[in-house]
């Protein structure tokens, strides 16, 4: 299998990113796959660990349903414990953002611009605010009760807390952002 051979060349690449079917035995497409893995997938290796959703420690929210997080990051208004949440996104180029969009929102990075353009044309809200760096996002979430973001688990600081998704922690097998 092509995916197997490429996985062996790049052992940290998640298997799901390999275009397994219908492309095998086609050299032209194989060259594209090499390009894809090199340019797109290798940067994703940095967060092979799961992403986690974080809020300020001042916000008494321990768990949120996945549907609510989806609504929030798709431009809807969501409240938790009587507090309006405001989502903070990483920049579209950040691999963490791309992974979050795909796993949490079910929208691929290439389709995301189209999604938000269509939402504006429909008269819906604009996308969540983009924060230029993860470090800044962590500080803002820590300081602003109501701010909510996502980072790799290893980046979590003392000032923020991890929110379970549908009652599942990052260590659980069927955690949504794994």
């Amino acid at each position, binding site marked *: 299998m092509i995916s197997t051979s490429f996985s062996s060349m790049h052992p940290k690449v998640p298997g799901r990113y390999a275009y397994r079917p219908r492309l095998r035995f086609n050299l032209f497409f194989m060259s594209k796959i090499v390009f894809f893995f090199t340019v797109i997938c290798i940067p994703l290796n940095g967060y092979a660990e799961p992403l986690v959703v974080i809020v300020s420690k001042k916000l008494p929210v321990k768990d949120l349903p996945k549907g609510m997080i989806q*609504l929030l990051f798709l431009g809807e*208004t969501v*409240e938790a414990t009587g507090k*309006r949440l*405001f989502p903070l996104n990483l920049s579209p180029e950040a691999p963490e953002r791309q992974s979050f969009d795909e796993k949490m929102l079910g929208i691929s990075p290439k389709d995301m611009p189209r999604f938000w353009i*269509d939402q504006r044309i429909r008269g819906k809200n604009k996308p969540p605010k983009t924060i230029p760096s993860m470090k800044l996002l962590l500080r803002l979430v820590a300081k602003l009760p109501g701010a909510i973001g996502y980072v790799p688990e290893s980046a979590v600081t003392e000032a923020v807390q991890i929110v379970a998704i*549908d009652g599942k922690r990052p260590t659980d097998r069927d955690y949504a952002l794994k």
Partner: protein
Amino acid sequence: MRLTHHSLIFVALLTVGIQQSVFAFDHDEDPSNEIELSSEEAAILRELEREGGFGKVRDIPLLDIYGFADVLVGGFIGMNDHVASQNNFGERITNVMLGNLNMYLDANLTHGFRFLGEIRFHTAPTATSEGPNFDGTADHFVHSTSWDAVDGNTPFSFGYIEIERAYLEYVYANWLKVKIGILLTPYGVWNVDHGSPVIIPTRRPFVVASELIPERQTGLEVSGLLSAGTLRIGYHAYTSNGRGSVSTALDLDDNLAVGGRLYIDTTALGRLRVGGSFYSGTTAEERVNVVPESLQTGSPELSSYFSIRNHELAFGADLVWKIAGFHLQAELLSRQVVYDNDARAPTLGGSTPDYHAWGAYGLLAYELPFWHLRPFFLAEHNDFGRADFGGLSGMTIFFIGLNIRVLPVVVFKAQYLHVKLSSNTGSSSVTDPQNGFEMQCSWAF
């Protein structure tokens, strides 16, 4: 149906609720009260305040301006005289026309308030046809030409501006949002999602365009969305002036229309949304005249009556299912109209009967895994329930075409149309099938 007083009470209660909410926000929830910020964080916080709508109002809200436009090339091939008289496309196939130039004015006003305006710039009235009229004047194209006095009196063509929507929205929570102003009626799929970049064919199906439920209304809407797992339940309820030639500003018979929508959205199997809508209201046209007897008294008196008045009840059902690149979409709409016996809409040589019109369309599209190519097929049927559009009683249209999203902001479309007409008169000159070809380029900006 007379909801005026109830609506006023509702608005009053809502106003009290909003004031309380704003008050609480101002004093208890300003996040900048208790944190120290770096200059970078402070700048972002100010942007968040303006865009996200929390904290104290420090600045005039930023206005976002964006929009969409499209250009259409095409027309009908071999059009018969009857249809040509109803449609200024004629037999020309090389028409190039600016379809939409819509501009959005969008501002988060903080504290959950948002303004959204959408205005459309028309090339109309130029090239619209007028008549044939009941007074016998002939059909003719309108030329909206004037002369530019500051540029050597050179001719230019002027056009109309249409307010597509303009409302103030207050979001209390996701389950309770309130809008007031000119609103696109929340029903079906392609009434609110009306921008050409998000519509798969070059135009909306006639079922939607013919406004079996009014396209927009002036009034007040309450809506919300509840979420439980993969299931979401949304609702809309509204009251408005209803239909009528002056309904953007007046409710001539002092009888507010009401309507609503309920839908279920699930991501359990692809993305499936099923909804149902209704609208109930009256349409009235007023005529003011001089009381004849008062002329002889020397002090003429005026009286008014409804020259047209009807009650209507409309329903809609819709479905959108997106799964594995497939896009299945359908809408069914029905409109029942019953006139007051002394205020039927006059037609040539008669008056309009009560009628029950309905229409439905189904769309199947598939997005290929490369180049954002999306071939589609759409079929629609319209039953006018009476003679309309110069004697037609129904119309069936088939579209087959291709939608290409060349960029997230640019869409090319090409489609072939086959139109079958029906008439109770049985005249073949009226019902000869029509064929058309259209290409459209649509873009967001």
